[in-house]
């Protein structure tokens, strides 16, 4: 095997990536068939960051994520069937159909919530880190952040707060080069997001997020430091968003060759596959079987969601506040 990863680890990383890919492709098909209410934001092309970081997370670590959070949720262990039902607005969804794609949550698996307000999840993660320390719990918190979100005041303030109090918090910036249709470079004063974060007083690595080995290594270092009680850390991972900002986005603002080239050269799944086959760490049949199982799992999740009922009317008034 490679130096640090056992065969079982490699299989786990692959399984997580192909499950995310299969889930997102399934959601895409559902959306194209008109079965997804509202908009969905897919993480196709960004699977390695979710899988590589989450490989080092425990079940009780708490994450807060964004509108593009399906991959983070799956990698954290959230049940794909409950997620699919939620995205389709069904009663058996993980939030009972109240939240939808942008608000997936699963307390049992440490997903505090996905968020529709860009940047707003960062302070929540800092709070989860504060509670961990205050309560003497070993868990850490992770804030998933986009390059666009990294320009939000709430994110800057969170970086400072976490650094000032040495809180057990990891900030992962997935830099896909765009916030909606706007190129990052046109609205950001620096190209070096990691250096900007270091200015707040925490270590930040800058990696190719389509290389899961780079992600896994960066996450290992960062999370080890955080678990040692040495304070927060950040990872800036460059990735390519294979799909539109939302499913259905015509992407006229983007050269089509950009995505085509990325699919050829920076597909995290193909890169992993090539690497492990060339090195002889895993064999093609095993990889294919895992990918096929992932596709079957997600197809079954979609079928189950089709058959599930809508939430009953009485849930409308439930869980606002007051008595349970």
């Amino acid at each position, binding site marked *: 095997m490679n130096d640090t990863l056992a065969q079982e680890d490699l299989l786990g990383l692959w399984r997580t990536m192909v499950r995310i890919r299969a889930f997102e492709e399934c959601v895409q098909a559902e959306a194209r068939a008109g079965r997804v209410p*509202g908009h969905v934001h897919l993480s196709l092309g960004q699977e390695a960051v979710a899988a590589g970081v989450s490989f080092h997370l425990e079940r009780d670590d708490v994450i807060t994520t964004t509108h593009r959070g399906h991959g983070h949720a799956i990698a954290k262990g959230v049940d794909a069937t409950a997620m699919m039902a939620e995205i389709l*607005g069904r009663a058996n969804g993980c*939030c009972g159909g109240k939240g939808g794609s*942008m608000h997936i949550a699963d307390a049992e698996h440490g997903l505090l919530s996905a*968020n529709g*307000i860009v940047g707003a999840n960062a302070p929540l993660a800092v709070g989860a880190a504060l509670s961990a320390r205050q309560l003497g719990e070993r868990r850490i918190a992770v804030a998933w952040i986009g390059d666009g979100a990294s320009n939000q005041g709430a994110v800057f303030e969170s970086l400072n707060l976490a650094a000032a109090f040495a809180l057990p918090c990891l900030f992962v910036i997935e830099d896909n080069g765009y*916030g909606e249709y706007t190129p990052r470079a046109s609205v950001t004063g620096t190209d070096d997001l990691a250096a900007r974060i270091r200015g707040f007083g925490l270590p930040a690595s800058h990696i190719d997020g389509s290389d899961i080995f780079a992600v896994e290594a960066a996450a290992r270092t960062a999370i080890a430091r955080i678990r040692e009680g040495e304070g927060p850390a950040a990872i800036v991972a460059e990735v390519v968003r294979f799909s539109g900002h939302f499913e259905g986005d015509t992407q006229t603002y983007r050269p089509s060759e950009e995505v085509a080239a990325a699919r050829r050269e920076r597909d995290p799944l193909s890169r992993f596959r090539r690497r492990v086959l060339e090195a002889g760490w895993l064999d093609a049949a095993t990889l294919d079987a895992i990918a096929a199982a992932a596709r079957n799992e997600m197809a079954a999740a979609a079928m189950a969601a089709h058959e599930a009922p809508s*939430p009953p009317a009485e849930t409308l008034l439930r869980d606002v506040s007051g008595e349970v």
Partner: protein
Amino acid sequence: MPEMTMAEAIAAALDTEMAHDPHVILLGEDVRAGAMGVTDGLVARHGPDRVIDMPISEAAFIGAAVGAAATGLRPVVELMFADFIGVCFDAVLNQMAKLRYMTGGQVRLPLVLRTTIGAGDRAAAQHSQSLHHLFTSIPGLKCVVPATPADAHGLLLAAIRDPDPVIVCEHKMLYPSRGAVPEAPEPIPLDEARTVRPGRDLTIVAYAAMVHQAEAAVVRLAAEGIEAEIIDPRATAPLDATAILASVKRTGRLIVVDEGAARCGMAADIVALVSTRAFDALKAPPVMITPPHTPVPFAPALEDAWLPGADAIIATAPRLCAGGKEGGAC
């Protein structure tokens, strides 16, 4: 008069004002591409120096719009969804609304904040709120809530020319709705209600999408012999209290239909206005039709149940007309 959608009418008003006043600039996220379906095309006509894409930093760019308005520009700033106001609320609550007053009138802020409101798009709790009442509760802000393309056009023209900050709440579900819009730019005064339909039996006050629900309801009520008058105040601040009171004094009955908050919202505000200033005219207790006091749910079945609509008006009006202190039919 040409027919256009509400989105096109808003774009036309922006285009007119940018052509006629070089101090007007447009700021917002993805305003060049027109992510909200309104502002695309303006950059081609007015250039990237005046149609400026912003980073996702609402606290900074809405605060900056206040500063720029105070120092010679006439910014029109777009906040994609009213729900995002939380991120930049200080710029609105403590800066935009108070600078003129606190400086003893030294500072004027000719500034427009355009934003979208409204549920129905399956966009869940953080992209569906109608928050016009929130702006209304802050002295120093004006707030308009258009229901038709013509009103969106005329009110935006007036808002941009206004010397004070105006918040324009555009209902996203109305963007594709079509209607005639005057060819010549005709600003609509911010303090004038529109009588959508006259009627003698009952006054229905409604804003934005609820105006259309009220229109659907009155057709069916008319078949039952109830002639309802619909008043669209068009602005929440300033509020055309005169028009509302005059109507209720004629009809003696009031329903307010509003997609905003069930508590401390425009429905409560207008019922308070009428109860305190036209109490003697009332033949029955006023009725508020609003969503329940909950966040907006995602699942279509729940969102549909959450939204008030024509059915609620139709169910309420006959009771209102039959009951009341004088009893009998309308």
